[in-house]
């Protein structure tokens, strides 16, 4: 009887190979981006210093820190925009879905398609219509089928909560709409290339409170389908929109954890001083 039980229990346990496979899937499923001793440099001078952190899938991660701490540099590393600056280099590993995007042979174009970027200042293509702003990326990728393009443009504008406001004005210039609408247009444009991660560099800093609220609602909705990383100087915005917060100072990761914990009970004094405005 005892022996039978042993056999039954043993047969229910996964093999070592199965355990490894499950762990692997868990790690890949839970974390979209993993930084492993990652550093970034400008002409040999470090701007990001030896950061290790795991960014969770389908969650919003806010990166906060004083000006010049490396926030923007860090998210520009996520889709290899950093290397476009002359003299800019990196070291360490940055994994997207478990693959090091800085490995030789990794295609930066493919990576940039997977990791979309929205910048501080809305920057629709000035000569293009609202429709073409969204469709531009798809057209560059060779999509010519008008029906398919219509479908994608509509879907992206709906996802960025802009469709109802511009559906009758799709041929108007992208620059003709308000600042808040332009920023949502840029988000729609970023979504059109079907990214998996959306990096936003202070996406609402130039917007009024109503447009800011719309962007924040949008971020909350988009995280169901995307992994979102947002750089912000606005502590309250970080507290409102993010699930996790990373505090950077002088290129180093000081603290990283659930947003509620960071804003209610941070572990590091430096974090406490920064978020409560008693820095230095």
């Amino acid at each position, binding site marked *: 009887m005892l022996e039978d039980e042993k056999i039954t229990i043993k047969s229910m346990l996964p093999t070592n190979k199965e355990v490894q496979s499950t762990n692997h899937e868990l790690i890949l499923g839970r974390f979209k981006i993993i930084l492993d001793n990652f550093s970034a440099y400008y002409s040999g001078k470090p701007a990001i210093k030896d950061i290790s952190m795991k960014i969770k899938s389908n969650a919003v991660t806010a990166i906060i820190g004083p000006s010049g701490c490396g926030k923007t540099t860090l998210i520009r590393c996520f889709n290899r925009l950093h290397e476009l600056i002359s003299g800019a280099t990196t070291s360490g590993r940055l994994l997207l879905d478990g693959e090091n995007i800085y490995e030789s042979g990794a295609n930066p174009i493919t990576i940039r398609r997977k990791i979309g970027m929205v910048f501080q200042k809305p920057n629709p293509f000035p000569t293009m219509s609202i429709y073409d702003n969204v469709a531009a990326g798809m057209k560059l990728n060779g999509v010519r089928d008008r029906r398919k393009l219509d479908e994608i443009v509509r879907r992206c504008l709906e996802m960025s909560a802009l469709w109802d406001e511009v559906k009758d004005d799709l041929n108007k210039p992208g620059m003709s709409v308000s600042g808040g609408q332009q920023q949502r247009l840029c988000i729609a444009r970023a979504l059109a290339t079907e990214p998996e991660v959306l990096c936003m560099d202070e996406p609402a800093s130039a917007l009024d409170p109503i447009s800011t609220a719309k962007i924040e609602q949008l971020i909350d909705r988009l995280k169901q389908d995307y992994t979102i990383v947002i750089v912000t100087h606005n*502590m*309250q915005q970080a*507290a409102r929109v993010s699930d996790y917060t990373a505090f950077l100072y002088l290129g180093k990761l000081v603290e990283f954890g659930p947003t509620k914990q960071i*804003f*209610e*009970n*941070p572990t590091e004094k430096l*974090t*406490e001083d920064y*978020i*409560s*405005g008693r820095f230095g």
Partner: protein
Amino acid sequence: MDLWLNKLTNLMQGMAELSENSVSTAIEAYLSDKNVVETIHNQSTELIMLQEEVSDLAVELLVRYQPVAADLRFIKACMEIAYGFARFGRYAYDIAQVRDQFGKLSDCDHSMVANTADEVKRMIRSSIKAFNDRDVKMAEDLRKTDDIVDSFYRQNIKRILEGQIEIKCAISAALILRYLERIADHAVYIGDLVKYIVSGEKAHL
């Protein structure tokens, strides 16, 4: 924001002083068979008004500064501690009402109330000192003293139920012991909030 936080601290200290004074006055009056219901009623009302003032100030601070971390914990705790101080005042009024409603109680044996009252007054002082000094150790010790108060309460109620005490004395003592036991609980909650202010840890009741 620091100026506003100082204002909040001053308000809290005012409440602490008044609530401690209310409870002491009510207990002393009971033990010396004096009617102070009007005085204590006024103090209790003032404490409720001060609690509202703390609440308004805290909300204003939240709206104006959107505080985080230690500031946020302090403001949140102040709102709850102010409620605790207001409860001290309310129970003091309840104690004073006993003498007012029951009339002369000088023939009663006050020893049961006196012993418990000493512990409870000590707890109030400790909770206030722990709050002012952010003394976590003192705040944590309040739970131990509360166990003593609870034990006194059970023993005394048992004694009352034995039926050897005259009915008027028995009911008045039972009521006052109950109010004291509740005051001790609120002192413990204040201690828990002091710990929350300092460490961010919440008490698991």
